[in-house]
């Protein structure tokens, strides 16, 4: 474990460092960013789910007064991108594959002219048959949405099936699945479905792009991943990285929705044609629903073998992730979630098939939980069902089978930093799991989860200590609300022996701040935290060298704490950092500056075996969590009222405990919304409720009492032992609620969301099954 000294700031719930600008309305978000002479951009989108583009005539739009540029797919030199599989068009070329796909874009003097110009663009489509159901799309005879998926460039651990709609088929094989089922006293087999929801960040996607006279493009964007955005844009426009500069604004929520680069690429394509006039593109709420990524709808079949005493002997899971028209990282959703699909249990025999499948619908992509929520919805509801049918306490059956330190995972990894059992005990204790009696139609439910992170990613940071004993951290990490700025400041301040107020955190700017994979996958505290730790320690070493000169002491004998450098064991012999730098105040630092550099790349991960998915380390760390829910059902209306959710999370180490609670509370709200209220409804590929009136987000009146808590089982590679948190905090919510509802009404609902109608149907079917007396 790194960083074992006594901690003064890490582990403290200090207030967030970005409070003042946010509560006064002074924080500048992507939506707020303005430049002189800025043009307004609008996008023409496909009105067909699947069609060949015969012809696009943009000339009438170009002639409209006030129009400054019109672009189509031909205006992006390399019009093909993808986070892993390069299969996505920024703008359609010969074909559209979903309703909402960008076909052309316009930049004009104002919004009205831009809108008018869109209406003048003439697109002739030749409609094609479409496929909407992923269970149809996987069939060998299904029409192909991408003609030759095998020809796309793709990254590690991704295996498209040639001449099919399957862009990923992950296989995990452990032990012998037939023997496992043969050894069981009972075998349970169930089918589940988890539906499509949207992230709905409160701030829409917004970008400003400007071409500089040198040919360089500057982009201001509310992205979650500036460094990867720069790479994607450089590739698309055939430019070196140094010719693209991405500057991050404040971000009004991301949750995975602001990781892709489509919006920015459209703005750049226009900006290349407006002679230096900046172009601003803002998505409307309707466009966010119809053209940005959503959570993956998913069909899951789970088969579990179990002995009479509740011991699991085998688990087989088939998951079909519906990724829509383009992969948009769905291939990694299927990979990461596939690896977790058997649940956090000691199982000798596992068989997992995780598919990511194209359909003619809006794309699914990264969404809080990254696919794990879907398989947890299935697997954890089945665990409760098994427990109830065997007459075992759902907590006891989980404790009996739960992974622990040294357990072997589905891929054969020997697990470390496993706090699962502690989370089970803590969450159930906080909820009050053991009760003598429940009211009629009141229920308790439990779900636990393990969640991994993207492997093989990297973060860099620079720590610059200034001559007035303050410091700046240069980092590309985006604080989209999760609080990473505060965590980074705490780590830097801790290592430099400075107060948090003396640390400033930069805005992401790819010209200045080093590479970072992005604020995604619950990775920032672990990866950027390590990079900042290393950079701050390098800066500290330089300071100790300077102090060694002045104090005539060996730097190795010096310590830095509370803004003071002193000889270990002789605290009187020392100097404050402020005084150490005093001679440099007006002439600059003698050796130029004090700069610390840090980079963290996890190099220990190993690729998966193609046929068995086996890998001794498929992720940098695993997070563990348990949620326990209490619900009440109204048998007359079918309405579910949540009373309480207790959530316990093994996150390694809480750098800022109040911030961790906040992340858990927010993730639970996401889970509550998607379980009870939110649902994107599509008919023949068309989103029929693309607005916040018809798509119901949870309000302040819908939330139960929340009881978050942490378990700290330190990870050897994490900064101060920290792992990650937010993604894991949504995964168990739907299943915990589903189990509480089942406990209240005696029936499990396998298709999410749990609507009053489904509850009433379940009650009715239960009544019909009961013998009449």
């Amino acid at each position, binding site marked *: 474990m790194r960083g074992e000294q006594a901690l003064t700031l890490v582990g403290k719930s200090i207030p967030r460092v970005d409070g003042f600008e946010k509560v006064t309305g002074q924080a500048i978000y992507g939506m707020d960013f303005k430049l002189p002479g800025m043009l307004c951009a609008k996008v023409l989108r496909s009105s067909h789910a699947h069609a060949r583009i015969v012809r696009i005539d943009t000339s009438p739009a170009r002639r409209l007064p006030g129009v400054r540029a019109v672009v189509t797919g031909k205006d992006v030199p390399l019009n093909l991108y993808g986070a892993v599989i390069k299969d996505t068009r920024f703008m359609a070329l010969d074909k559209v594959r979903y309703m909402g796909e960008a076909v052309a874009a316009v930049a004009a003097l104002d919004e009205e002219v831009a809108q008018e110009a869109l209406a003048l663009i003439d697109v002739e489509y030749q409609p094609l048959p479409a496929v909407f159901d992923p269970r149809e799309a996987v069939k060998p005879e299904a029409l192909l949405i991408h003609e030759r998926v095998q020809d796309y460039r793709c990254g590690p651990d991704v295996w498209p099936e040639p001449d099919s709609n399957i862009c990923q088929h992950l296989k995990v094989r452990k032990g012998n699945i037939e023997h496992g089922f043969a050894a069981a006293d009972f075998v349970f087999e169930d089918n589940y479905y988890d539906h499509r929801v949207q992230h709905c960040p*409160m701030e829409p996607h917004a970008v400003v792009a400007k071409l500089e006279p040198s040919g360089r493009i500057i982009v201001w964007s509310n992205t979650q991943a500036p460094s990867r955005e720069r790479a994607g844009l450089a590739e698309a426009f055939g430019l070196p990285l140094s010719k693209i500069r991405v500057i991050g604004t404040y971000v009004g929520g991301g949750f995975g929705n602001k990781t892709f680069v489509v919006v920015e690429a459209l703005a750049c394509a226009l900006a290349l044609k407006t002679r230096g006039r900046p172009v601003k593109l803002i998505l409307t709420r309707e466009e966010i629903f119809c053209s940005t990524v959503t959570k993956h709808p998913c069909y899951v079949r789970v088969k579990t073998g179990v002995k009479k005493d509740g011991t699991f002997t085998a688990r087989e899971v088939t998951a079909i992730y519906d990724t829509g028209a383009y992969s948009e990282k769905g291939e990694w959703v299927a990979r990461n979630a596939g690896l977790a699909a058997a649940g956090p249990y000691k199982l000798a025999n596992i068989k997992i098939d995780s598919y990511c499948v194209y359909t003619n619908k809006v794309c699914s992509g990264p969404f809080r939980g990254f696919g794990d929520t879907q398989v947890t919805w299935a697997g954890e509801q089945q665990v409760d069902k098994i427990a109830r049918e065997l007459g075992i306490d759902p907590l006891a059956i989980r404790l009996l089978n739960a992974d622990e330190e040294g357990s072997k995972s589905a891929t054969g990894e020997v697990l470390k930093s496993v706090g699962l059992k502690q989370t089970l005990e803590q969450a159930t204790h906080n909820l009050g799991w053991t009760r003598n009696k429940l009211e009629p139609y009141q229920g308790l439910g439990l779900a636990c989860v393990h969640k991994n992170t993207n492997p093989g990613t990297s973060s860099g940071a620079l720590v610059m200590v200034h001559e007035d004993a303050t410091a700046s951290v240069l980092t590309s990490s985006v604080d989209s609300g999760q609080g990473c700025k505060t965590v980074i400041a705490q780590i830097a301040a801790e290592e430099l022996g400075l107060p948090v107020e003396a640390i400033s955190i930069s805005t992401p700017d790819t010209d200045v701040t080093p590479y970072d994979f992005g604020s995604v996958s619950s990775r920032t505290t672990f990866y950027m935290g390590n990079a900042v730790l290393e950079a701050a320690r390098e800066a500290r070493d330089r300071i100790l060298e300077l102090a060694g000169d002045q104090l005539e002491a060996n730097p190795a004998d010096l310590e830095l704490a509370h803004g003071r450098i002193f000889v270990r064991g002789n605290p009187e012999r020392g100097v404050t950092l402020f005084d150490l730098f005093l001679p440099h105040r007006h002439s600059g630092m003698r050796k130029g500056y004090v700069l610390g550099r840090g980079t963290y790349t996890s190099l220990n991960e190993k690729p998966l075996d193609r046929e068995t998915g086996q890998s001794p380390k498929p992720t940098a760390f695993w997070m563990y969590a348990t949620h326990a829910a209490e619900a009440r059902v109204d048998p007359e209306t079918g309405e579910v009222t949540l009373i309480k959710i207790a959530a316990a999370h093994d996150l390694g180490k809480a750098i800022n405990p109040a911030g961790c609670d906040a992340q858990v509370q927010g993730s639970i709200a996401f889970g509550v919304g998607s379980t009870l209220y939110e649902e994107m409804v599509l008919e023949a590929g068309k989103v029929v409720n693309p607005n916040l009136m018809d798509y119901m987000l949870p309000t302040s009146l819908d939330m139960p009492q929340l009881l978050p808590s942490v378990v700290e089982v330190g990870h050897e590679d994490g900064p101060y032992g920290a792992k990650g948190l937010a993604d894991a905090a949504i995964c168990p919510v739907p299943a915990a609620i589903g189990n509480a509802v089942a406990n209240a009404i005696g029936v499990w609902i396998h298709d999410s969301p749990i609507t009053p109608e489904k509850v009433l149907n379940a009650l009715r079917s239960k009544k019909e099954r009961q013998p009449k007396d």
Partner: protein
Amino acid sequence: MKEVITLRVNKEEYEILVPAKRILVHALRDDLDLIGTKIGCEEGACGTCTVLIDGKPVCSCLMLARDAQGHEITTIEGLMEDGKLHPIQQAFIDYGGFQCGYCTPGVILSAKGLLDVNKNPTEEEIRLAIAGNLCRCTGYVKIVESIAAAAEVMAGKT
């Protein structure tokens, strides 16, 4: 067609030339550069653009700028006094009542609309007052705590 209208915002008068159909949130953000008022849906569903009109919370995307004439408009920029944060703003910092911060100005103004007329609100009253402000980050827990704490400060209890 454009017309000259007079808006009284944060106790100052502004004359602006705007099209008759200019909605208030655009007048505030684009004509007066008061970008603290945010836009989330532009159809009155999310509460992000909440401002106070004569002390009452209103979605500024649902009101024409011309109709706001003759009324006292308060935006988030008008809350600080003598360089000091309003107790609600201070409570949001102290109790972590925000994450991404995008809904925050609207939520704070809804809270002000409540606390100015109800010095001692129950949790239920607080939840009801912000029910029109969608927040995607916090699960509302720390928002409610912040407003309750601000109420105590404003009532002189702490």
